[in-house]
């Protein structure tokens, strides 16, 4: 297929003979989440891509060899953008959006190592300076608080981005759930200057990247590498064979 750019030939392939199946399985695995050519461009710009390029450069050299001193702590890092970004009515000076992140099905038994949301804690929008934070959005019920805040720290990416650890929440509430797995977060901003609150109404920061989710994963599907043990029967045979050969050679 070299020189024939196509990512769609696999699903269309008829039943493959056994010799080709394993090869195709690898390529299929590589291509399983490949997009169509037209799908890439809209996502190629902006802070999310920049973040992942920096992560890549820290973790692998220019030839793709994983660096020995890499610190990501997992073999896979997936950056998810919110699938929905829903504005909520203003509450006083607070501008709020609900962010939905679809985690998808856990198809090949990925183990969650770490989950963080990276968000802008400072937004500059139409001459307004906003202070923002993110919290878990949980439906109101007598047993549930309306929201839960995680622990935040400044991201390495830039001074305007903050990283909040959500590993425990996703691990306990979402990761092993069957069916649709969706993380809902509340992104809240407030003008830094109280006098700007009234003027700020009507401006919408939905057009800028405000948050993305990072999932650090390990693939538990992979077989552990087996030690190459020589069966005792063959070992005995080889010992006899080698002594016979050495005698004859002598």
């Amino acid at each position, binding site marked *: *297929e*070299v*020189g*024939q*750019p*196509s*990512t769609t030939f696999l699903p269309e392939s008829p039943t493959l003979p056994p010799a080709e199946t394993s090869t195709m399985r690898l390529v299929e695995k*590589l291509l399983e*989440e*490949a*997009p*169509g*050519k037209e*799908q*890439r461009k*809209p*996502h*190629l710009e902006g802070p*999310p*891509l920049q973040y*992942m*390029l920096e*992560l*890549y450069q820290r*973790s*692998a050299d*220019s*030839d*793709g*060899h*994983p660096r020995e001193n890499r610190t*990501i702590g997992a*073999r*896979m*890092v*997936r*950056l*998810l*953008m919110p699938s929905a970004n829903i504005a909520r009515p203003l509450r006083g000076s607070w501008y709020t959006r609900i962010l939905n992140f*679809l985690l*998808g099905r856990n198809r090949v038994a990925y183990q969650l190592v770490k989950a963080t949301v990276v968000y802008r804690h400072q937004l500059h929008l139409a001459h307004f300076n906003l202070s923002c934070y993110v919290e878990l959005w949980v439906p109101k019920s007598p047993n549930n608080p309306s929201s839960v805040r995680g622990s935040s720290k400044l991201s390495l990416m830039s001074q305007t981005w903050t990283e909040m650890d959500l590993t425990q929440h996703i691990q306990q509430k979402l990761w092993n759930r069957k069916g649709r797995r969706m993380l809902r977060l509340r992104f809240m901003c407030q003008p830094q200057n109280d006098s700007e609150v009234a003027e700020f109404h009507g401006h919408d920061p939905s057009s800028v990247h405000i948050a993305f989710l990072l999932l650090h994963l390990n693939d538990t599907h*992979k077989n552990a590498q087996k030690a*190459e043990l*020589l069966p005792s029967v*063959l070992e005995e045979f*080889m010992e006899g064979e080698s002594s*016979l*050969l050495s005698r*004859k*050679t002598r």
Partner: protein
Amino acid sequence: QVDSVASDVSGPSQEQDASENNQCSLHPYTVSFRQLGWDHWIIAPHHYTPNYCKGTCPRVLHYGLNSPNHAIIQNLINELVNQSIPQPSCVPYKYDAMSVLLIEANGSILYKEHEGMVAQSCTCR
């Protein structure tokens, strides 16, 4: 029969001399993801160096080739018992992993380390 094989292998044959330069070994090879038609979704790296193994496997599989016992036996079978059983083939022995950064169909960005992507050494088996 073993005696005759042993005397045959005690000194290099002409055939072995001729194939010495073409003995099973690792060859460097680089391909771009553009050539593979995958550059629209693999962001980094731009090039892939899988390398490959090529060459003939000697009649006597020395330790440097890391051949398993099975390959040694198969060589003997080919030589002594049944020539329709092929001699071992020159194939990769150790592999390196490779990290790629790619765009997924749903628009997410994935960093992933794939095992077994780069041939690092060769063996006859």
